């Protein structure tokens, strides 16, 4: 058996008996992702904005009924939930109870006012804590209002260019319904696919890759521990190539990372219903991610003087990269400067690769992200290898 594997085997046994790798590599990410999912899950999996509207029709005319009909058809499409109330008091009560976010009050005399070109007001009363929902309710009313206004305007414009008064006879004489004026555009639905992780997968993947950078530290930092404890000098004296010592530590890191990620992928799939995507694609991302983690933490170990120093610097780098990489909350979707900075971390590419695999995409969709992560892996691990080898030659 090559010396590097022997060293790796010894360290691996040591780490497993020590249990710290188990805690950081498996227990912590599992527990935390479950808690995060429990706490943030309902907010992120709300499937949209959860619009709950009410309507009170005090007018009971053709125009007011057409407004309720617009809302009802939106409700039938699943865009919102609609409750029809008999009077304002009932709607007010439902709002206070939190059964609706906002309600529409269609006033008595609305139709009359429209026909007489007199002002009328549809009131949107909303919960102060649901401002977006209330604004969207208002935009429903505004869209309805512009539809009515379009018909009114169409009739008067036609009458004006003809040089006649608007009379019932004139309206009768028109060849088209005035309401067509408000239908001069259509919204063509171009449904896009989903390339975003659902809540359980997001938290499972985020915590797994966040703690991965702590887990792999146990391997590469081992080199500094051997140095501190005086066993490194003995290893150097042994008839084994120096490269094997470095390689042995890197193998430990790699194996710890792979074991931790593997266990987490399987465990979260069963415990939290996480959907990681095509197995081959996930495997590629995990391997690339672990290699990048080993490279970065190897680089940290190569510049640190003591195991404690390496551990501390490593934690700082792991936390900053993890936060910036959007493992706690999705940074990329918030726009701004951070959204571009996030792709300077392997974490962000790992999450993006998994997102590309969502909605049952083929494994090849993970290739671009895997490639990006491999750039981090190759650059950092070659640097780390060179630096560590030079250090051993002293």
């Amino acid at each position, binding site marked *: 058996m090559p010396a590097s594997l022997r060293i790796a085997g010894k360290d691996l046994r040591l780490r497993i008996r020590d249990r710290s790798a188990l805690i950081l590599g498996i227990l912590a990410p599992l527990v*935390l992702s479950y808690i995060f999912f429990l706490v*943030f899950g309902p907010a992120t999996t709300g499937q949209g904005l959860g619009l709950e509207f009410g309507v009170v029709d005090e007018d009971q005319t053709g125009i007011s009924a057409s407004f309720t009909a617009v809302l009802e058809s939106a409700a039938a499409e699943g865009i919102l939930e609609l409750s029809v109330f008999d009077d304002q008091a009932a709607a007010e009560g439902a709002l206070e109870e939190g059964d609706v976010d906002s309600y529409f009050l269609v006033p008595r005399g609305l139709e009359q*006012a429209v026909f007489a070109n007199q002002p009328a007001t549809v009131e949107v009363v*909303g919960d102060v804590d649901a401002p977006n929902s209330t604004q969207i309710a*208002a935009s429903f009313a505004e869209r309805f209002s*512009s539809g009515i206004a379009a018909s009114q305007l169409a009739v*008067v414009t036609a009458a004006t260019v003809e040089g006649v008064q608007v009379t019932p006879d004139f309206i009768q004489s028109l060849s088209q319904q005035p309401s067509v*004026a408000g239908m001069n*555009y259509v919204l063509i639905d171009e449904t896009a696919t989903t390339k975003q992780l659902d809540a359980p997968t997001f938290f499972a993947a985020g915590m797994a890759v966040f703690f991965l950078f702590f887990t792999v530290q146990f391997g590469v930092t081992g080199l500094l521990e051997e140095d501190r404890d005086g066993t490194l000098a003995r290893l150097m004296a042994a008839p084994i190539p120096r490269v094997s010592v470095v390689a042995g530590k890197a193998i430990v890191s790699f194996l710890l990372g792979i074991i931790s990620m593997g266990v987490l992928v399987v465990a979260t799939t069963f415990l939290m219903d996480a959907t990681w995507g095509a197995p081959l694609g996930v495997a590629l991302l995990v391997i690339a991610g672990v290699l990048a983690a080993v490279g970065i933490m190897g680089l940290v170990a190569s510049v640190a003087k003591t195991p404690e120093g390496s551990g501390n610097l490593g934690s700082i780098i792991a936390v900053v990269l993890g936060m910036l990489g959007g493992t706690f909350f999705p940074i990329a979707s918030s726009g701004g400067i951070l959204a571009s900075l996030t792709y300077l971390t392997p974490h962000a590419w790992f999450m*993006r690769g998994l997102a590309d695999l969502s909605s049952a995409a083929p494994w090849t969709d993970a290739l671009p992200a895997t490639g990006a992560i491999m750039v981090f892996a190759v650059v950092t691990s070659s640097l780390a290898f060179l630096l560590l080898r030079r250090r051993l030659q002293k």
Partner: protein
Amino acid sequence: MKELSIGWVNVKRMIRERSNIFFVFIFPIALVLLIGIQFGSGFAPAIGVNQGDDGQLSDQVVAALEADDSVEVRQFVVREDLVTAVERGNVQAGVLLPAGMQTTTEAGEVLEIGLISRPDGTGTQLQSVIGAAISQVMTPVGAAQFAVAETDVDYSEALGVADELSEHVVPIDVSVTAVGEATFPESLGQFDLGASSQLVLFVFLTALAGSSALILTRQLGISRRMLSTPTPIRSIILGESLGRFGTALLQGLYIMVLTLIIFGVNWGDPIGAVLILTFLAAVGAGAGMLMGATFRNDQQASGIGVMVALGLAALGGAMFPLDLFSPTMQRVAHITPHAWALDGYAELVRRGGNVVDVLPELGVLAAYATGLLLLAAWRLRVAITER
């Protein structure tokens, strides 16, 4: 006085460690800044717009969308980028304004505007917002098209008439009223919410991380050496507790003062705010001591410490506002000291309360602190004196 010396040594040990400077003093402030920038201004769904050309109608639609405060509008020059942004969830819906909107409408044809949304997202719900903005622009256009179809007037003349008349048509007015008491009042500053939650999170995190220092003290035999001097065991335990407590309190005060100076964070009644911090630091010290007395391996303890601290912070509402928890989760949250401390800060900051108003929260925190410190003192006595 020996208690104070032991405590002071512990505070000094923490400050001398260079990486602690980052985690204790730089990182929390950076997070308050980050969270304030990202979420302080509130969440508004984002709509992406791709204009086929910069025609007048196209620009008018964009302007109408931008006038709506409930959404944030982002421009996309490349159509494919907009599709990708919707797929990744970076914007909630996309609007594709076709080229030549002017010519299409002049020809009296129906304008086709693309709406990109995801089956699972908020996109379809934003349809009404998008529709309202487009309708606003298209109303006079529609009237002109109608007049052209009904009479033999030409389009530009009809549009002129329609534009003029549109000022005289009285549309149905839409008034919006918000009712109820705001959970997050307007007066709540951009950084206020983030500052108090990060304070609670980090004071507890630092206190738990302190457990590894206690383990090292025991491992290296310092505790037993102290015991061999004429120092009563109760002084050692008290001193160690003071050390954890002092570190947590120091960090908390630092976060409070710095966020007050840099971000102008409103902490409410100063006495109440400092008292909550003091009691929370005591709870943290108790928990840190208990861990330090129970674990034998400092690496294990720091791993578990991070997990417990982050887990309790998430459960206790230090990462996501308690007010937005479901009723069941709110009850679960109040198992943690975090939730009580945050309730206290909410009372001080959002409702302008004073010390008297936060007495219940202080009481609960005091009970936690007493319980944990007594338990930790007993465990530590056992741990130091065994063998």
